[in-house]
């Protein structure tokens, strides 16, 4: 999928652990893991709002669009 989730980067920037974020957002760690690994098919606006509120960031900070034919930055 061309949508890349940069949740790990934001967590590192905020020096926050996954468990803590999951607890504050109100989702399970399993679901957060699904989101982080890019396996999620969709994300609810309410979840996105809660994540942005906890991490004090914009939706664009945690997800990025990269066309499939463009080689990976790394």
């Amino acid at each position: 999928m061309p949508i890349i989730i940069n949740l790990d980067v934001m967590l590192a920037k905020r020096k926050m652990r996954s468990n803590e974020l999951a607890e504050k957002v109100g989702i399970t760690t399993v679901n957060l893991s699904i989101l982080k690994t890019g396996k999620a098919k969709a994300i609810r606006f309410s979840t996105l709002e809660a994540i942005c509120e906890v991490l004090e960031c914009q939706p664009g900070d945690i997800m990025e669009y990269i066309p499939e034919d463009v080689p990976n930055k790394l």
Partner: protein
Amino acid sequence: MKQKNRLASRLYIITTAAFVIVAIFTAYIVVCDIFVKPTNSLTSFPNHNYGYTVPVKIQLNQPGDSTLTYHNSDHSKSGQMTTSKHFTNEDKKMFQEILKDAAYSKTLIIDSLTMRRDNKIINKEFENTAILKADGYMILNPKNLGIKFLLAAKNYLLLFAILFVLWSSRKFFKALTKDFSFSSTVSRRLWIIGNAILCYQVINWVLCLIIQDIYDYIRVESKPTLGHHTEMYVIYPDTEFNLGLVVLSLALIVISRLLDYGNDLQKENELTI
């Protein structure tokens, strides 16, 4: 959800019991067919020595001035009148003689008759009838092994189809008992059941057409005597094609595709955070 699960588990128990009963019945028939020696009893199970049951249509051309006596036992459940003709002692004696006679390679049994005249159900007006049509069964015992195999296959096809559908239904309800939700197992089982019913109908229909081609008709004609007209019976194999079952099987296939779509939607929903 619990109530639905209970319904599925009850249906699982019912299908399991039905499967066991039909399996025992099938095994009994197979054993009878292989080991039981043929008897001249008209009510015994047909076996490979005795012959195989084939549904037939019987057309009776009766003189206009004749009167038909019959035992009327109406079954009006389906909205159609069914008239059952019971064997008299004279009929039984005649059939026993025919069965014992080595000159006859084929024997016939007429179980129940649905009387029709010009495709209309006859009620009580049996006088002045011209042509009567009836559904019945005939026991065929061909000498040709190929045709014998064909008839045996047709006779066992229904039993094995029922066994397979019951077994698949059992698996279907078992999967629902474990998890009453959309799943690939549930939709695949339903797809298999639908296709099994459809395949049975098509194979049975093809076998009927082949049998019709082999056995065109049997014609029994009486010699006209003074003051009496000719009485004639024409017996020909019937084509078994149940349109209702075909529609049901197609509906099951469509429902299985819908369940597949539901399964995809459920997976997407599960992966929505």
